[in-house]
Structures are given as structure tokens and as C-alpha cells.
């Protein structure tokens, strides 16, 4: 274990941003009507497929898919302070698990737990050795995973470099829905369940241990928290979310190819959660919108990532949260 305490002081310049608001322990609610908002958002989300034409609906579905992936990444990166560059690979493995099962004739409800299980196993296999050393080592190992997985998929998975088209879940006839509306509602249900589960994971002993480790690893260890076991668990959970999101991706697009799950996807996911805002649910949602509509990492997303890190380290969510204080200051 490193003896260096995790203060905000980096090796180097000694500049330190003062903690403000929530980050300084302010427990007042940032937004006073959480239940009303949640209810309105849920009602709006259910109404979307009946109001929106098919192609925009497809994009909204993809946003929900990426919300699930980013909720998982946020557990490790936002709450744990560890960096994963391998979530694109877990996403791809989940997507391919679902696609292979679907093409071999399995019913689609089976593919979701299967994708989660495979991702869980891989998350443990890669996470366990990687988190034993330091947060940095996890970033390096997961980067290597992200680079190694697409060629392996190309070689081993059916379809090879050409990819694998599969059937998407069809709506049961009694519902009277179109297939894309049905897929949207399925993805919405999974995303809602994933969101609820993640809230309890973050509030569980695992989530609190993770945050404690991030704040001060030495003190957390004295309290009986096992650093590498906690981090490995959190990483495996986070990989499960990426795998589930991959499965939902297969349901949504009906096509998987190795080129969709390269290291580019991992970087895009990380950029999304950083731009959205680490450690917050709204950060995952904003990040998912960013991931969906800013497809390949390019000049725009590179600049956005660098600027956000330099100017607004808590992302768009942090900016929005600071806005009332900022505007209030201007008032006489």
C-alpha cells in the first residue's frame, strides 16, 4: 500500500481546488423535489415510444443502453476513483454473448442474465490482479483488455470480422405494439431496474467502503475494509453493468461486429461519464446523450474532454449544480 495519503495535493504544482457545496459536506438537497421529478421523468419515459417516430426512438433507446453502461462505469470511476479503459470490451463481450445465444435459438430473456454472468466472470478475472496494486494499474490493465478483445472476437466469434446479424425481440401480439416500441420498453425496464439496483449498491457497505477507500485508503483499511477485495468486487459489478448494456445493445440494433467494441468505445464511455459528471446519476444520463450523439472520439470530443477536466472537473452536472450559487452571487 502506498503510504502517501490521498489528499488533493498532487505530486507537483500544489494547486488545489477548494471543495464547495456537496463536496465540502453540504447535505442540503441540490434539488428540492426529487420524487416529483422522478415520477415525471418515469411517466415521460413511458410515453416516449408513443410520441416519437421510429428513428429518433432508436436513438433514445441507445441513450438508455449507454445509461446502463455509464451507471456501471460510474461505480468504479465516479465513486471508486479508479479508471477503467476496458468497459467497451465488457460491453462488447455482453453484446456478443447475447448475439451468439440469440443466433443459436435461445429466447431473448435468457440472454440478459447470461451476458451479465459472463461479464461478471471476466470482471473478476481481470479486476482481481489489476486492483491489487493501485488505481493506475487498473487503467493500464483495462486498456490492454480493450485492445486485446476485438481481435479475439474477430477470430473466435461466429461471423468474424463481418459481424453477426441477429433477430431483435419481437413484441408479443397481445400488446399491439411495434417491435421498436417493445424493445424501447424492455430497455427502459432494464435501465430502471439497473438504476434502482445501483442506488442500493452505492448505499450498501460495498459502495460506502469504496468511497471510504477513495477518500483515505489508510484510514479505511484501519476500519477493516479490505482494499483490493472491495475494489475487485466493485469492478466486477461495474463490468456486469457494461455486459448488460451490451446485451441491450444487441436487442436494440440486431447486429454486432468486432469494430463496434474497440478501445474507441471504452474511451468514448469514459469521456461521456467525465463530461456528464462523475459520481452522479444525472452525469450518467448526460454522458449517455454525449456518447450517443458524439459518436467517434474526434476533435470535438477531445476538446470537450480536456476543457471539462480543466474548467469543470465535476462535468456538466457540476456546472448545473453550481449555477444557482453563481447566479445568486450576482444579485445585489
Amino acid at each position, binding site marked *: 500500500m502506498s503510504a502517501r495519503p490521498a489528499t488533493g495535493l498532487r505530486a507537483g504544482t500544489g494547486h488545489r481546488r477548494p471543495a464547495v457545496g456537496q463536496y465540502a459536506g453540504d447535505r442540503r438537497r441540490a434539488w428540492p423535489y426529487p420524487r416529483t421529478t422522478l415520477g415525471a421523468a418515469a411517466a415521460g419515459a413511458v410515453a416516449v415510444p408513443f410520441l416519437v417516430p421510429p428513428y429518433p426512438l432508436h436513438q433514445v433507446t441507445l441513450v438508455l443502453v449507454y445509461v446502463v453502461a455509464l451507471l456501471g462505469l460510474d461505480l468504479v470511476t465516479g465513486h471508486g476513483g479508479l479508471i477503467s479503459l476496458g468497459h467497451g470490451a465488457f460491453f462488447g463481450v455482453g453484446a456478443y454473448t447475447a448475439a451468439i445465444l440469440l443466433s443459436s435459438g435461445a429466447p431473448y430473456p435468457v440472454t440478459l442474465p447470461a451476458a451479465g454472468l459472463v461479464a461478471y466472470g471476466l470482471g473478476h478475472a*481481470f479486476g482481481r490482479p489489476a486492483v491489487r496494486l493501485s488505481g493506475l494499474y487498473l487503467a493500464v490493465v483495462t486498456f490492454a483488455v480493450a485492445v486485446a478483445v476485438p481481435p479475439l472476437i474477430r477470430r473466435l466469434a461466429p461471423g468474424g470480422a463481418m459481424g453477426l446479424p441477429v433477430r431483435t425481440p419481437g413484441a408479443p401480439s397481445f400488446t399491439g405494439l411495434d417491435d421498436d416500441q417493445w424493445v424501447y420498453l424492455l430497455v427502459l425496464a432494464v435501465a430502471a431496474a439497473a438504476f434502482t439496483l445501483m442506488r442500493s449498491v452505492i448505499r450498501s457497505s460495498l459502495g460506502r467502503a469504496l468511497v471510504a477507500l477513495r477518500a483515505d485508503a489508510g484510514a479505511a483499511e484501519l476500519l477493516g475494509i479490505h482494499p483490493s477485495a472491495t475494489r475487485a468486487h466493485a469492478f466486477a459489478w461495474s463490468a456486469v453493468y457494461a455486459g448488460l448494456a451490451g446485451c441491450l445493445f444487441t436487442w436494440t440494433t440486431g447486429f454486432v461486429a468486432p469494430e463496434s467494441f474497440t*478501445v474507441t468505445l471504452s474511451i468514448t464511455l469514459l469521456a461521456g461519464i467525465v463530461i456528464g459528471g462523475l459520481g452522479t446519476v444525472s452525469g450518467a444520463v448526460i454522458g449517455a446523450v454525449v456518447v450517443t450523439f458524439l459518436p467517434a472520439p474526434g476533435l470535438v470530443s477531445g476538446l470537450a474532454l480536456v476543457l471539462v477536466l480543466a474548467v469543470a472537473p465535476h462535468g456538466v452536472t457540476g456546472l448545473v449544480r453550481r449555477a444557482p450559487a453563481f447566479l445568486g452571487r450576482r444579485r445585489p
Partner: protein
Amino acid sequence: MIGQIVHGLGTGAVYAALALALVLVHRFTGVVNFAQGELAMVSAYVAWQLVEAGLSYWAALPLTMAVAFAAGALAQRVVMRWAGDAALIMTIGLYVLVHALAAQIWTSALRTFPNPFPGGPLGVAGPLAVVAAVLALLYLVIRHSGAGLTLRAVAADPRAARLAGIRVGRVHALGWGLAAVAGAVSGVLVAPVVFLEPGMMGNALVSALAAAAAGGFVHPVAAVAGGLLIGVAETLAGTYLWADLRVVVPLAVLLALPAVRSGGLARVRA
């Protein structure tokens, strides 16, 4: 078999130079630079542009090194100084930015790069000699120059160095510049082997990360040795076992390292 090992050493020289750059940045500024490969790629493009403009290879080389030094120092001064606690994610932002800029300027067309070394097994001695020269040069600069002394002081304790009157920010820029020079060597070495294109350093970066991890991101000589070994292992695995196994070698090294030598790695800072 011997031929494959020699060929692997040539590849390993590329990884060794890039791993050396990673170790330098980590030692002097405490961050693993994921953008190192992209900076090296830009250096290779600069060398190519100079050769295209009519310079000879050996005249273009020192100019490229100077440009690489400036680019590395500039990246530190313009981008990295604002990173705060998120230095690692910032290097990924830099990676995306540099990659996109290179794709804008030079497009993603494949280009050929002149190879200054003769073909055949003897040609491998060239890259190895270059890497050895860079290692020796860096050793001299870091151990026996005033700038090297300030570098080591900042690496040992940035706050104490600042209190002693050292301009820590400038020294960080110097560290990034020196690392970029080592990275540029890897870029120029790899460019004749693979085609010149914006994505050419992707796989080399992973192998170099594994090599640098073998030295705990602090030991330059271990990183160079690791780079050569990984180069040989990748070539042998790719030739005799299975072509796609190449990409798995660095991953296997990274997963095995914590069990083998956690002592040297425990010093790695986040």
C-alpha cells in the same frame, strides 16, 4: 527461429523506446501518459514531412527530436497543468485530441516511411543501437547535468523542490519534453516497419505499457529490457502459435506481473 528472435528484437526496440518515455513521464511528473504513443506518431509524421521536403534522413532526425521536445513540453504546459487530480484522464483527453489533430492534418491515408537501416538480420542492430544511444544520452542528462539534478529533485519531493527555488512547472515541462524525445525515437523506428497512419502506435502503446510496468514505471533499464523481451515474445507467439496471440502477450504480462513482483510495482502512484 534465430531470425524470428532477431526480428522480435527489432520490434522490441520500438517498445523499449516508448516504455522509456512512459517511465520518464511517470518518474518526473507522477502520471502514466496514455498520449505518449500519439505524440510519438506525430513525431514520425514530422520526420516524414521533413524527408518529403528534401532533407536526408539523418538531417531530419535531430530536427524531429527538437520538434518532439517542444511538442512534449507544450503539451505539459498547455494541457496537463490544468489537470488537477485527474491527470490520467487528461492524458486520455490529450490522446484523443492529438489523434484527431493528426488525422485532420495528415489524413488517415497510409504512407511509406524510408528505412535507413539495411534489411536482414544485421539491420536490427540499427534500432538497438539507437535505443542504447538514447538510454545513454538520457542517463548523462539526468545524472550529470544541472537540469537533470532539478528533475531528480522535483521527482523526489516537488514541494521541497519548490521551496528550494526550483520552478516545478518548467521542470515538469522539461520531463515531458525529454520523454517525448524518447517517444519520437520509437515513432521513427516503427514508421518504416508499419505504414505511417494516425493509428500506428495503438498496439505499440499497450506493449510499451506492459514493458514499463515490468519496471514498476520507475526503472528505465527494466523497462527497456521488458520492451525487448515483450517484442521477442510477441513475435514468437505470433509466428509459431497463433497470429492473434500477439495482442494477448502484453495483457498476459500485465496480469502476471502483480504475482511476480509486487514490490517494485507497489511504488506506482495513481
